[in-house]
């Protein structure tokens, strides 16, 4: 009975618009939240630091990009650069003694300010041209960071992140950084969930679907495109800052190259454009599939004594990974979130399959 829509009668509009009207979904969400909160005590530290933490951060970044791509329909191929701006801003700020809390906000602001400059191209161009101009952003920022020693950190081109504290707690070891990432991820997730039910999110959706029709109902397309770039870049900047402080700890320019931007775009698309849940799925797949394939191939090779050359061994996972993405796009272009939705809908109406839409 947990998994039924029938019999739910809303008496208030607020109740109808709640995030998880079904008890089943609420139980599921509650379970996941409990698991994530308890993870430092139940999970091996290795898993916490090298799987769960990056997954939360990459999911957060994918959510920020999803606001722009899925929410407002604007492509961005330079989101890695947006994160780089946030990361470098915050690291330089904390190195000069500014509190981490303030550095986070300033990192977001700087990313937003620079992101909006390149986003301004979106006022004039669409689709492929916007892709090109955001790609230009990626290259310009990459170039600037690696060629200005003052930013990249001198000849070594690496910056050590000093010890910082957040709200009085030292962000060291595995556990505190994990909770910082979890908190950030929770805030961004709630924001993105709410986007689906406020006038702000609807205005973005209007621009995505038909910009002339958006204008006629009073949505200024210039304003809202810029706003979408601003908010999305702000999120990217803050995630970049937390990534640098809680995960990377030593920042180098190549951590934020085009690879990262493409990875994030892949997460958004494979997960599902505009889907909050999809961003988490997408991040998990893109982050862990290569590792999984690598291990699988490695075990196979040693177990069966196959004479795979090391060169081939390092390429097979990449090929499988590429094939997997193509397969997903062919079979379910709406992404992993849609696959989950199909399964959920199946059980939702089981055994009355005929009412399925």
């Amino acid at each position, binding site marked *: 009975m947990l998994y039924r829509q029938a019999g739910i009668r809303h008496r208030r*509009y607020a109740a109808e*618009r709640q995030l998880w009207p079904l008890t089943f979904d609420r139980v599921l969400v509650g379970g996941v939240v409990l698991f994530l909160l308890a993870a430092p005590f139940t999970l091996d530290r290795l898993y916490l630091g090298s799987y769960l933490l990056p997954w939360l951060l990459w999911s957060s970044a994918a959510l920020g990009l999803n606001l722009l791509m899925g929410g407002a329909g604007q492509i961005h191929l330079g989101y890695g650069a947006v994160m780089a701006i946030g990361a470098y801003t915050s690291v330089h700020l904390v190195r000069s003694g500014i509190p981490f809390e303030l550095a986070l906000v300033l990192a977001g602001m700087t990313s937003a300010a620079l992101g909006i400059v390149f986003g301004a191209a979106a006022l004039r161009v669409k689709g492929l041209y916007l892709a090109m101009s955001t790609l230009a952003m990626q290259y310009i920022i990459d170039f600037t960071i690696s060629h200005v020693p003052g930013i990249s950190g001198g000849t070594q081109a690496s910056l050590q992140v000093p010890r910082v504290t957040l709200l009085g707690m030292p962000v060291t070891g595995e556990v505190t950084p994990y909770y910082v990432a979890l908190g950030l991820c929770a805030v961004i997730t709630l924001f993105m969930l709410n*986007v689906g*039910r406020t*006038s702000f999110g*609807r*205005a973005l959706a209007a621009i995505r679907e038909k910009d002339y029709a958006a*204008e*006629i109902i009073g949505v200024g397309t210039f304003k809202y495109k810029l706003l979408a770039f601003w908010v999305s870049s702000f999120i990217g900047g803050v995630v970049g800052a937390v990534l640098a402080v809680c995960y990377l700890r030593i920042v180098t320019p190549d951590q934020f190259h085009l690879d990262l931007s493409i990875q994030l775009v892949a997460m958004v698309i494979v997960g599902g454009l505009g889907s909050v849940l999809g961003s988490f799925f997408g991040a998990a797949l893109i982050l862990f599939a290569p590792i999984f394939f690598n291990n699988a191939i490695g075990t196979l090779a040693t177990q069966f004594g196959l004479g795979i050359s090391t060169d081939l061994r390092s390429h097979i996972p990449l090929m499988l990974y590429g094939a997997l993405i193509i397969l997903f796009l062919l079979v379910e272009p709406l992404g992993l979130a849609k696959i989950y939705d199909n399964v959920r809908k199946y059980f939702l109406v089981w055994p009355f399959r005929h009412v399925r839409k």
Partner: protein
Amino acid sequence: MQRTDSSGPGDIVLRCRDIERSFGGLKALKAVNLEIRKGEILGLVGPNGSGKTTMVNVITGFYPPERGTVTLFGENITRKRPHAIAARRMARTFQNLALFRGLSVLDNILLGRHVHMRPSAIATLFYWVWALREETRHRRVVEEIIDFMQLQDIRNEPVEVVPLGLQKRVELARALAAEPKLLVLDEPMAGMNQEEKEYITRFILDARDERDVSILLIEHHMDVVTAICDRMQVLSYGETIAEGKPREAIADPRVISAYLGQRAAKRQAGAGAAA
């Protein structure tokens, strides 16, 4: 039905003066004048390609005119952008639907409330304290319109799966949700059967009577136009060839020949194709 008598001539909602607009070498509008008075339904008719939609696009800010001025409630809005004009309480529907696919019927109509809401990212983050109240308040208004337009059954459907006739109704509902003072309807009954036409006619009249809007109606169905319009203006090749009481306007010899000419031309084209 003649509401125009009760309001003085000073109550002009929209006034267009000497509007000219061309596309390449084609003059789509040649010095067109147009006036809408408070509480009035003005019918704008004319053969295909006579410039009706172009006129609407000039009024709503999509195509700035090359010459002439548009005045809304005494304010010059000639070169304002469409969203700025929308904020001045003008709403419109499109000849070819312009709904937002992927959103539900409800969300489409809620978007009509945009000019009355204060969307913000911060309010979105703190939904429970900042946005929930506002959303609920506007939802109430929208539900009233959903009742008025009898769209209750489909409010949660994605708008693109709704039948075409209902989509037209949703678009009208979205326009009404903005509580406009001037409503511009570009062929709201195109492609509808008799019953649907009658529904829409009813909605338009009720909207005028209960919601205090003035309406500019473009429509090819002459029976409807003559029945519900207070005044009528006829365009042909970008020029006004007649205006006045509907029955008088359509009886004008120039109007008859404009329509007959079109029909004669069609017959000729048909004969040519058959030959």
